């Protein structure tokens, strides 16, 4: 399977847990949302598991929903966005 490099960006609580802003990863070029989600929260960054259910992913600055079509390109940005409630 062809893989491409992507950037995973962490925000809010996710950034606190992973202790960095950004990580580079390689993913299959045809990964869909569910695959990306599983890969990030279970395989690459299992420490994020505890917040997984309240997080969403945005791909190249577009919020995704579980049934969203995801198109990945080399260096696509996958943002891990937990809800932020501060006011």
């Amino acid at each position: 399977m062809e893989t491409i490099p992507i950037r995973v960006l962490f925000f809010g609580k996710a950034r606190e847990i992973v202790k960095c802003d950004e990580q580079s990863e390689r993913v299959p070029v045809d990964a869909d949302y569910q695959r990306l989600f599983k890969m990030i929260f279970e395989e690459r960054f299992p420490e994020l598991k505890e917040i997984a259910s309240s997080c969403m992913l945005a791909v190249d600055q577009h919020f995704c929903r579980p049934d969203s079509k995801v198109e990945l390109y080399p260096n696509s940005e996958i943002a891990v966005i937990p809800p932020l409630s501060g006011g």
Partner: protein
Amino acid sequence: MSVYRRGLAEIGINRTPLPNRSKPATLKANINSEEKLKNSADSTTLSTVPEIDYSSRVDDDHYYMLKSPYQLKTPVIRESTPKKMELLQDEEPIERFDGVDDDGRFHLEEFARPAPVLKATLTQYVGNAEPIERFGGTDEDDGRFHFDEPFGDCPVLLERDYGMDQNLSKADVERYSRQLLVHEFGVNGQKELKAARVLVVGAGGLGCPTAMYLAGAGVGTLGIADFDMVSKDNLHRQVAHSETLVGKLKVDSLKQSILSNIAVRTFSTVLNGAQTMDIAKDFDVVADCSDNAATRYMLNDVCVFLNKPLVSGSALRWEGQLTVYNYGEDGPCYRCLFPHPPAAHLVTNCSEGGQKDCAVCGEAPTIHAPIDYEVFCGSGVVDKNPSLSLLDPNERVSVSEYSTARKSPTILVDTRPKHEFAIASLPEARNIPMDSLKQLEDIELRKLLGLSEAADVFVICHRGNDSQLAVRLIQERFKSEIESNGFQVKDIVGGYDRWAEEIDQEFPRY
């Protein structure tokens, strides 16, 4: 048009009391019947108008201007012709003038003729309302128009036709000129903004600028909801609140910073779902500037039920998020993106990764009315720092017990992060942040903790939550030493915050 009508109650309630005056004038509140019932106090006769030096002048535009005896929105007097009056009945007053009552009647000079039309009274300054009543009157050849009614209902004459948009007044044009000149915004933008009613929930770090800029730009009605009081540590970012209002309600404080031409409605209560439904129905847009998950889910659901767009802002430390929810036919709601509330301590099913159908706006919604959001989120609206109760009472000491204990040799472990430790600490405190406690090897940690000193170990943090976790952690890691050396590990209830409150008022609270 609804803009100002919505603001009526506010205007009425806040009417500045008028000083006594020898000749009473009547201020009629010709508000529409529904509001009249609600605000019956507004319909009462004001028998007082201030004893002031009324002056008047004719300016370059031939407007006759009268000084106001009233402190509030004053009515408009404009030159007109009968024909124009007919045509312009629906036009909104552009500028407000005050009424003169020097003999129990309202007098207008030359320019007022022919007979003026009462379009809106003081309390019912309602934009482009229909004239309520036409006044009869006479010109007694003294150059003034005399009303038959003795009155105080300040008449409003319609304006000359300058081809202006009927929803914008001369004052609007002058005030908002800079944004009218931005062609993407222009007259239409201004008009729509003026007709808009926005409810800002939360008068804090996000609510202050949101409300101030909306008001500055000329929003029609501004609602502000917040139950909280201004505190000193709000001032650095909630810049609408002034130092003199620390301890006062945030809604009142923010309202004082809002430009006087904006109708403001305030709601100083902890909002529940039902109340919010009732409040939000009178607004066009809801701005979520709240600081907790429960309120965010509540506002989302209410906006879905009422079909209102939700502009949601949130910020923490260096990050912020701005999202518009429930906007347009396909726009997702907050629950679409975040179906599960954040619950850091719950083990969650990871493979789930969101739900396909939204519980509130999906194909087959399961939530049809506001729910209990505090239960749903497992966290409160009011209590920003819920206190943890992990340890048994005999594993804890109060600040006063510690103040006695520290007279003998003790070990005080301060679990706050380094940057908090740098703010202030007790002299005997040794800083071992939570992260270090968790990560350090036993041998290093033992040295840092000073367990060999065999003195009792006390653990302190900012408010007394982490200190409990730390006590448990130390107890588990050094169980055998604790048992064999016979010392105790206890946390200090309420942490430095309680220490500053009860033991040493000079200790800085933050």
